[in-house]
Every structure is written in C-alpha cells, then in structure tokens.
C-alpha cells in the first residue's frame, strides 16, 4: 500500500532563518506531488506541484521554493523565513492516471516568530 510521510511535524523558527520540510511517498512510482498551505481564513492554498523529477510548477509567488531531487521525494524550502510563512503545510500525492483523488500527509505546523 502507498504511504506518505512528511517531517518535521512541528517547527518553530525565527524570522530570517532557513526552512526545509521534507516529504516522501512509498509504494508508488512517478506520482504527481504537491505542497499546500492551510492558513487561517484561506483554506488550502496550492504552493507547488511536480509531475516529475526536477519539474516544479509554482502557483503563488512567495518566499518559498520546492525541489524534487528523487521520484518520491519533495522538499519545501526557504532561505529566509517571514512571519507570513507561518501555517500548516501539507504534502500530497496523486497517481497520474487517477481521476483526481489526492492523498495527503500528516502536515507540518510552522510557526515563525
């Protein structure tokens, strides 16, 4: 069966510090991968998605970047965090041929102070 894990689960970082959130998927190959953010009053906001290794699409201009160094690994990064980067970050995956169901990870709570 397929599983998705992301870490760390909770992170408290000072403004200006770097960020790295990691996500891995097991039990499937060549998935589409996604990073979402849930911020208060804004629902699930798509940040990045990837259809293959090294292929990243950015949906919202921001202080963050994403990379996909391996087929089932998706990393969300920032060089210098802003207060506005605080939120609940969710990684998700989907089979390309599937009609659309996304499978989400457990989420990572980031607080920038």
């Amino acid at each position, binding site marked *: 069966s397929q599983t998705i894990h992301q870490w760390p689960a909770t992170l408290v970082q000072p403004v200006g510090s770097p960020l790295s959130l990691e996500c891995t998927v097991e039990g499937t190959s060549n998935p589409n991968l*996604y990073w979402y953010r849930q911020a208060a009053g804004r629902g699930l906001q798509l940040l990045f998605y990837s259809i293959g290794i090294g292929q990243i699409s950015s949906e919202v201009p921001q202080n963050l970047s994403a990379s996909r160094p391996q087929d089932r690994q998706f990393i969300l990064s920032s060089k210098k965090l802003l207060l506005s980067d605080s939120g609940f970050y969710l990684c998700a995956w989907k*089979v390309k*041929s599937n*009609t*659309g169901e*996304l499978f989400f990870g457990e*989420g990572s709570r980031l607080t920038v102070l």
Partner: protein
Amino acid sequence: DQQVKQNSPSLSVQEGRISILNCDYTNSMFDYFLWYKKYPAEGPTFLISISSIKDKNEDGRFTVFLNKSAKHLSLHIVPSQPGDSAVYFCAAGLRNSGNTPLVFGKGTRLSVIA
C-alpha cells in the same frame, strides 16, 4: 479569482439531524468534484467524489449532489454525528487530466452538537 467557493465558513448542527454543506464553482470545465474532511493538525482525508456525468453519489451517511446548470454541489450528512465535526473542503478538477491540480474551496467548519 476563486474558482471554488464555500460561502459558509461554519455550520452547527444538532446530532442526528442532517448537515448540508454547499459549494459553488465558476469554471465550467470542471468535471470531477471531491469532498475532503480535515481534523485539526491532520492532513485532509478523502470523503466522497462525483463525476459530472452523475447528479448524485451516495456512500453510507454521505451523499453528494451535483447541479451542473447552477454550478453547485452539496454534501449531505445524515444522520450527523459528533465525530463528523471537522473542516470540510470541496475540490474540483478535470477528469483524466492527471497533471492538473485540484482547486480547493476555503472550507466549512462543521460542528455537530450532542
């Protein structure tokens, strides 16, 4: 421009009664719709979906209705239970378009009162 709208941020329902969560969309190209349920500090989990070729899909206590002409869908939960208290997200996508991301609404927080 919000393509998927959930205009009610919150909803309170008595246990045993029906919960109705609504969702509107603007893009007529969407042909596949999903509902996700999310508890605090957890990732959303898939609940139920419907294709545009149907107007109703039922799974146990959960039924989704689709009105294509009105670009409106709704999720009915009956009977509602306290464990249904969560945030519900509506999402829309393009069937068989594996690379197009789903578009989510802002969510509706459902509280089922015992």
